């Protein structure tokens, strides 16, 4: 069974008289352990789709299953719990908590979301920070490190709760291309090491050579699905 299955997903935003049809009859399946990117120009519906997969929002119609759960069935609290247990998030603006150190930022989900004992927490946090190459910066605050470093910390934070799926909405948009490749690299490395499914969105065609499966969105329509591996497109 696939990790994510989307059947005829529609999302319509309504604000007053204006309706925006952000996703139009989208179907796809994603297998566990994949490394996937949604690409498309700005306004094509990438964020909307990732929000739906991330149980942050519900489709207007259609059937979306994530890890065997029908997301439209979840209440607000259930959705929060589900996210805490199964999902990791990486944001375009890194969104680290400014008052917490690098270490504490990564520890946060274990503490406030999953509630793990101290020993296990520090083991996990340190090993992840080591993997993303941030172990020597643990006591720094977010405003003391560079953008690339922040996103590496964010990757560690997303993985620390051992999620099945990590969602990253334009994780490289605020990074220069060299750093961007590095972050994508780390993400794929993590997928290889932990078997976590990664889904990220981007509008940057340079990045997409790195992915294995590429979904292209245009105006809310899923126009193509390409398979590739390590920069070799079909």
């Amino acid at each position, binding site marked *: 069974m696939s990790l994510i299955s989307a059947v005829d997903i529609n999302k319509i935003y309504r604000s007053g008289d204006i309706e925006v049809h952000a996703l139009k009859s989208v179907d796809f399946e994603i297998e566990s352990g994949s490394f996937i990117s949604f690409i498309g120009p700005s306004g094509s519906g990438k964020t909307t789709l990732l*929000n739906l997969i*991330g149980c*942050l*929002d519900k489709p207007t119609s259609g059937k979306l299953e994530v890890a065997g759960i029908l997301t439209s069935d979840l209440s*607000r*609290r259930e959705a*929060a*719990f*589900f*996210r*805490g*247990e199964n*999902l990791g*998030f990486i*944001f375009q*603006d890194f*969104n680290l*908590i*400014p*008052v*917490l150190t690098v270490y504490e930022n990564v520890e*946060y*989900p274990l*503490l*406030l*979301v999953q509630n793990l004992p101290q020993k296990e927490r520090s083991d996990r946090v340190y090993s992840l920070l080591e993997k993303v190459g941030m172990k020597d910066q643990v006591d720094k605050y977010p405003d003391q490190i560079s953008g690339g470093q922040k996103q590496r910390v964010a990757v560690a*934070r997303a993985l620390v*709760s051992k999620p099945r799926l990590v969602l990253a909405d334009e994780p490289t948009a605020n990074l220069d291309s060299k750093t961007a490749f590095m972050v994508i690299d780390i993400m794929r490395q993590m997928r290889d090491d932990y078997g976590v499914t990664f889904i990220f969105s981007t509008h940057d065609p340079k990045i997409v050579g790195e992915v294995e499966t590429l979904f292209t969105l245009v105006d809310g329509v899923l126009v193509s699905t390409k398979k590739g591996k390590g920069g070799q497109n079909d």
Partner: protein
Amino acid sequence: MIKLFKIALRNLIRFKRRTFLTTSLIAVGVLFVMVFISASSSFNNIIIGQITDSMLGHIQVHKRGYMASIDSLPLTLNLNEKGWKKFRSIAKEIPEIESYSPRIKFGAMFSNFIDSTNIRINGVYPDMEVATIPLLLSRIKEGGKAIKKGEILIPELLAIGLKVKIGDSVVVIATNRDGSVNGMQFQVGGIIESVTGPGGRDGYIHIEDAKDILRMEELEVSEIALRINDFSKLDKINNILTEKLSGNKNKQGKQIFDIRTWEKLSPFYNISKMIDIMTIFIKFMLIAIVLVSIMNVMIMAVYERIREIGTIAAIGTMPEKILALFLIEGFSLGVLGVIIGNILAGMSIFLMNVIKITFNFSRQTGYVLAPELKMGDIIFVSIVVIVVSVFATLQPAIKAAKMEPVEALRHV
């Protein structure tokens, strides 16, 4: 929980200036309230002590009806011997009554053989009076510190007015209850300082002399002043006494005794009540200050951190944890303000005691204000401020907890 505290405190430190301003505002509020409470209660206690200990006593008992015509000091409304005995037997049953003193009060003519004037006279048993009104002796400015038979203590104003000195012979002329007039010669044994309130211009003689002038066969008491052993239990003891005395009715079935605490006898009670009302008012001001300032910063705190709230909500933080995070922040602001405010108040009150602030009240001068910080007040004010702080944070915190992560994340 500890972690939530840590995050909340870090956030407070992150916005140092704002935190500083808010806590200072609360601290100054607490400072004012504490200083006002302790200074006004010191003032109250001093004045009440003066009033009760130099003239009134804590409680007074009269025959019912006497108080209504007290201005004329009616001898016809005195308690008779039977009533006085009844009172004594009941007073014996109440150990909280430390002492009591019967008084015969009457209006008289006072003459130094050249001039004459009106005087109000209290005939008292010196020992009982001094035990009940401990400041009486200290009020005697000139002459021996005693009330002897054949001697009269006269109020200062009268001594000045009639140019009477210690040792002078004077005559007191009074009309008894049957309407016949009688005079008696006294020596001026002392001159007493006037006090505030009713009775401030009274003279004192021995109760036996009073009986003689008024040609009383047996003791008829105008007034009984009582002193209790614990002033803070005034109402309770007054109730016990009232309860026990209320069994005594006359032939018409009416109550014989009229029992009143100092509060119903002195106009200062109204001043004291006013001060209490002002204290309540000032406490409300403090609550308003805390409410407005905390709500203000917390609304700002939530607004500035919308994306942060979106982030932690997206990661899976439960709404109640987000609520707690902000409530703790408001709570900590309150606690901080309270701690600083109380420390400042403690220092100010200590300083006030060191520099000895004096004040005058009516004719008395040179009272030294002795404010003290009472644990009860500290606890009460602190709890109120902290509760109000949390309450003020509630609305912004609930707003944060209810935020939709998608919208919060989109916020710029």
